[in-house]
C-alpha cells in the first residue's frame, strides 16, 4: 500500500532575553549548576512570578513574522504535573488563549513553495535540567534553566516528508535569527524540535495515529527520526497492526526511536488560569509598534536583493541565508562595491575563511568598507585577483586596511609593459622547449609560460598585460 506521511512540528525556542521570564536571574547558558537561581525560579514558598515585558514583545515579533493573529486578550495558565525538572510542580504556560495563533510560514521544497500553517505560538517557562552522571547514582537537578523564557511554536499537520520538515525548521530558524530573538542552538537546547508523525493511505483524508519524537539534537536528526518513524509505521500497518499513540525518544547513536513509558494520568494537566498573573492585552497600537521594529524578513529580502542587484536565485539565497550575511553584503555595496563581485567574494573566499576558522561574519575583523576597498583595488588594476586572495586572508587575520597592506607588502601590480616585456623575454630564453612546442602548434604550452612569468613577478604581473605581451612575443619568430 502506498502511504502519505502527515507531520506536525512542535518547536520550543528559548528567547534570549537578559533575564528570565518571571524573575531577575540572568538568562545565560552554561553557568555552574544552581548559580542562576533565586527564590522565584526555585519555587520557594510565598514567591510570585512577574512577566518579563521583553519576552512578550519578542513573542509578538515572532508571531507577526509568522503572519499570526496576535490575541488582543490572552492569559497565562498553570499546567500541573510532577517531575523533578519543575520547581513548582506546575509550569506557567498558555493553554486555551495563546498569544499568537493562526499564522503560516512558506517553505520551498524541490523548487515549489508550500504554505505551512502555524496553529499557535505561546509563552511558557523552561524547565530545570536533570543530570544523571553523578557518582552517587542519584540524579541531580540544576535550576539554572528553570524559568528561561520559552516560546512554543506549533504547526498544523501540513508537512508531508522528512525533507519538508527539514525545510520548515530551516526557514523557521532563519526567521528567528533574523529577528534576533534566540541563539537557535540545537546542541545547547535553545531550539528543540519535536515532530509528530502519522501516515495514512494515499488519497485518504483521515489522520492516522501519531507518535511524537523527543530528544533530537540536530535538524538532520529530525529528518532521520521522521524517516525512521515513517518506516516503522509502514511496517506496523503493512503487517496488519495498529500504531500506538505515544511519545518516543530519538537515539542518535543507534539511529532509532524508543518508546517512553508513561502513566496514563501523566496527561491530565489540570490547566487553570494563573491567578498570580494578570491578563495580557495587546492593542493595535502596541502590535503596530512592534511591527515597525521588525527587520525585513528572509523571503522578501531575498527577492529584493535578487532583483535590485541582478543576482542569480542561488546567489541571492546564499547571501540572505542569515541576516548578518545579508547586512554585510548590502553594507559592502553601500561602500561602493559592484554587486556581482561583492557576492562572489562573500560567497567564495570570504565564506571559506569564515567556515575554516568557525567565525561568525559579524565577529570577523574585516569590515564591509574594507572588503569594498579591496574590490576597488582589483577593479582599478592596483592588484590582481590572485594577489587579492592572499590579501583577503591577511586582512582576515589582521583586520588591517587593504591599501595599507598592499603598500606594506609591496603587492602593487606590475602594469609597466616595458618591465613585463623584459621579464617575459627572460622566461622565454630560459625555457626554449615550451616556446618551441607552442610555436609548433601545441598551444597548451602557453599556460606553463604564463605561470613562469607570474612566478618571476611574484604574482604581481598584471594578468591581462602578461597574456597580451606573451602572445606578441610568441608571434614574433
Amino acid at each position, binding site marked *: 500500500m502506498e502511504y502519505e506521511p502527515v507531520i506536525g512540528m512542535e518547536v520550543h525556542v528559548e528567547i534570549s532575553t537578559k533575564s528570565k521570564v518571571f524573575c531577575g536571574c540572568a538568562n545565560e547558558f552554561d553557568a555552574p549548576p544552581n548559580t542562576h537561581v533565586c527564590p522565584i525560579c526555585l519555587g520557594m514558598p510565598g514567591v510570585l512570578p*512577574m512577566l518579563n515585558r521583553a519576552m512578550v514583545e519578542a513573542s509578538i515579533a515572532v508571531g507577526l513574522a509568522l503572519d499570526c493573529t496576535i490575541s488582543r486578550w490572552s492569559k497565562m495558565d498553570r499546567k500541573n504535573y510532577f517531575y523533578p525538572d519543575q*520547581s513548582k510542580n506546575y509550569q506557567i504556560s498558555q493553554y486555551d488563549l495563546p498569544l499568537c495563533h493562526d499564522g503560516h510560514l512558506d517553505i520551498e521544497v524541490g523548487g515549489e513553495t508550500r504554505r505551512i500553517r502555524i496553529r499557535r505560538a505561546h509563552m511558557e517557562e523552561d524547565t530545570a535540567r536533570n543530570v544523571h552522571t553523578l557518582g552517587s547514582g542519584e540524579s541531580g537537578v540544576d535550576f539554572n534553566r528553570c524559568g528561561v523564557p520559552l516560546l512554543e511554536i506549533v504547526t498544523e499537520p501540513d508537512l508531508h516528508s522528512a525533507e519538508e520538515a527539514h525545510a520548515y525548521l530551516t526557514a523557521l530558524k532563519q526567521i528567528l535569527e533574523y529577528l534576533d530573538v534566540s541563539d537557535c542552538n540545537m546542541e545547547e537546547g535553545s531550539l528543540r524540535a519535536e515532530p509528530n508523525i502519522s501516515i495514512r493511505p494515499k488519497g485518504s483524508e483521515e489522520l492516522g495515529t501519531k507518535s511524537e519524537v523527543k530528544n533530537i539534537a540536530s535538524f538532520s536528526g529530525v529528518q532521520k527520526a521522521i524517516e525512521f518513524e515513517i518506516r516503522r509505521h509502514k511496517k506496523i500497518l503493512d503487517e496488519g497492526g495498529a500504531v500506538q499513540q505515544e511519545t518516543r525518544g530519538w537515539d542518535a547513536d543507534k539511529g532509532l526511536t524508543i518508546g517512553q513509558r508513561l502513566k496514563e494520568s501523566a496527561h491530565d494537566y*489540570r490547566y*487553570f488560569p494563573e491567578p498570580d498573573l494578570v491578563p495580557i492585552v495587546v492593542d493595535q497600537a502596541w502590535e503596530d509598534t512592534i511591527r515597525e521594529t521588525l527587520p525585513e524578513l528572509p523571503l522578501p529580502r531575498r527577492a529584493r536583493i535578487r532583483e535590485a542587484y541582478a543576482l542569480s536565485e542561488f546567489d541571492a539565497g546564499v547571501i540572505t541565508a542569515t541576516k548578518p550575511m545579508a547586512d554585510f553584503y548590502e553594507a559592502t555595496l553601500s561602500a561602493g562595491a559592484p554587486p556581482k563581485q561583492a557576492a562572489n567574494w562573500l560567497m567564495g573566499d570570504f565564506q571559506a575563511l569564515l567556515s575554516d576558522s568557525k567565525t561568525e561574519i559579524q565577529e570577523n575583523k574585516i569590515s564591509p568598507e574594507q572588503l569594498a576597498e579591496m574590490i576597488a583595488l582589483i577593479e582599478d588594476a592596483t592588484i590582481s585577483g590572485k594577489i587579492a586572495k592572499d590579501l583577503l586572508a591577511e586582512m582576515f587575520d589582521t583586520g588591517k586596511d587593504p591599501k595599507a597592506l598592499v603598500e606594506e607588502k609591496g603587492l602593487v601590480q606590475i602594469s609597466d609593459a616595458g618591465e613585463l616585456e623584459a621579464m617575459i623575454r627572460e622566461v622565454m630564453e630560459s625555457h626554449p622547449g615550451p616556446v618551441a612546442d607552442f610555436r609548433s602548434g601545441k598551444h597548451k604550452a602557453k599556460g606553463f609560460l604564463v605561470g613562469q612569468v607570474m612566478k618571476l613577478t611574484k604574482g604581481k604581473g598584471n594578468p591581462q598585460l602578461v597574456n597580451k605581451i606573451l602572445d606578441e612575443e610568441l608571434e614574433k619568430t
Partner: protein
Amino acid sequence: MTMTLDLHSRTAHELRDALRSGETTAVEIAQSYLDRIADVDSRVMAYLDLWEEYALEEAGALDERLAKGEDPGPLAGIPIALKDNFCTTHGTTGCASRILRNFESPYEGTVVTRLKDAGAVLLGKLNMDEFAMGSSTENSSVQPTHNPWDIDRVPGGSSGGAAASVAADEAAIALGSDTGGSIRQPAAFCGCIGMKPTYGRVSRYGLVAFASSLDQIGPFTKDVEDLALIMNVICGRDPLDATSADLPVPDYSESLGREVSDITIGLPKEFYTDALNDEMRAKVDAAVAVLKEQGARVIEVSLPHTDYGIAVYYIIAPAEASANLARFDGVRYGFRHPDAKTVEDLYKLSKSEGFGREVQRRIMLGTYVLSSGYYDAYYLKAQKVRALIRQDFDRAFEQCDVIITPTTPTAAFKLNEKIDDPLQMYLNDVYTNSANLAGVPGVSIPCGLTDTGLPAGMQIIGKPFDEETIIRVAHAYERNRGFDPGKPPLE
C-alpha cells in the same frame, strides 16, 4: 521598673506616644511584651517561634537611633508578631506544617520589609491552621491555640495565633492572612479588630500561598486608631506582586474621628436568617443602632447569591491550593521521607506524611475539581457564580457605602467540637468568605460580649479600595459604643 508593667496592655499608638515623649524605651516595651508572653503563652499557645533576643536587639538599636534624634518610622518600637506563613529571613517559616518545619526562608516578604522599615520590633511567628486551612487553628501540626477569653474554646482560624496574641496582649499588632475569613473570624472570636483589605491592596509577595486569588494579608489590632496606623504602612503597590493594585494609598489616620451622618449602611437580608444566633444578632443590631444615632442611614440591601458563597469557595480555594501546595515535594526544602527510593516515592511518601489531614483533603478536592472532565462542571461554574457574587456587591454598593453583618453566626466554639465534621467547619465562614470572593475589604470589630462572656464581632464590608470609609465607620462606632469590651480574664 514598675512603669513597664502595663506597657503590653496599651495600644500601639499609645506606645508610640510614650516612646516619643520619652516616657519609656523600645527595649522596655519589648521586654514588657516578652514578660507577658512568658506569663500567659503557656495557656494561650499563640507563638510557634519566639524571637526574644532578636526583638531586644532590634529594640536596642531603635533606642540608639531615637537617642540620636533620628526618626525610625511610624511603627518605631511597636512589638508586632506574624502569622507563620510570612516569609522572614530571621527564624523559621513553617506554616504550622510538618512538611515545612524548620524552613529558613532565603528571602523576606514585602510586608515584612515594610514593617521593619517602619521601625516595628518583630516578636516572632504565630500559630495557624496548617497552610491557613481551617477555622479553629486546630489544624496546626504543632499545637492548638486557645481562646484567651475561654481556654477551652478555639481562637478561630486560620490566623488563630495572631488573633489570640493581640487579644492576650502578647503583641501590640499582629499580621495574618485572610482567604475566606481567616482574619475576621478569629478577630471576632478573640475580641480584637481584624481587617482583610481589598484584594490587591497589600502585596502578597512572601506570603505562603493558600488560594492565590483570595489570599490577602491584614492586621489584628487593639483599636481602630492602630488599624489606621498599620494600614498606612502595609498598603500599596509592590513591583513584585502583579496583582497588587497601582492605586494611591490614602492616609488612613485622616478617617479617624470623622462624622458618619453622610453614610448609608446596608444590611443584607440574606445574612440575617435563622442560622444566626439570637444573641449575636442582638449585638449587631445594637451596634448598628449606635451608628444610626450618629446620623448614619440604615437600609436593607440584598446579596442574593450569598447562599452559594461557601460552595464557590470550596471549589476555587482547594483548586488553587492543589497547585500552590504541589511545590512541597521534599526536593528543594521541607520534609523529605527518608525511605524514598524512587522519585515517585519521594513525592508520595513526603507529601503523605508531611501534610496533615485537612490539607490532604483540600488537595484531593482541588485536584478532583480540576481533573479531566470535571473542570467545566466545577471550576468554571464556580468562577461564573463568583462573578455573580461580585455583581451582588457592586449592585448593593450603588445603594450604600458600607455593608454591616455579623462576622460569625455564633461565638467561639469549643476545641474538638467541629474537628471531625469538615463541612460544618467550612460553614463557619458563611459570613466572611463572600468578601474574599468579591475581593472587597472587610473588618471585624468587637461589638460586645455574650452572656457567657465571649466576644461577638460585627463585620463592616466596604467598596473595593475604600478601606477609608470602613475605618471611618469603625472608628465612629468604637468612639460611641458606650462600653469598654475589656480584656480577657487570663490572670
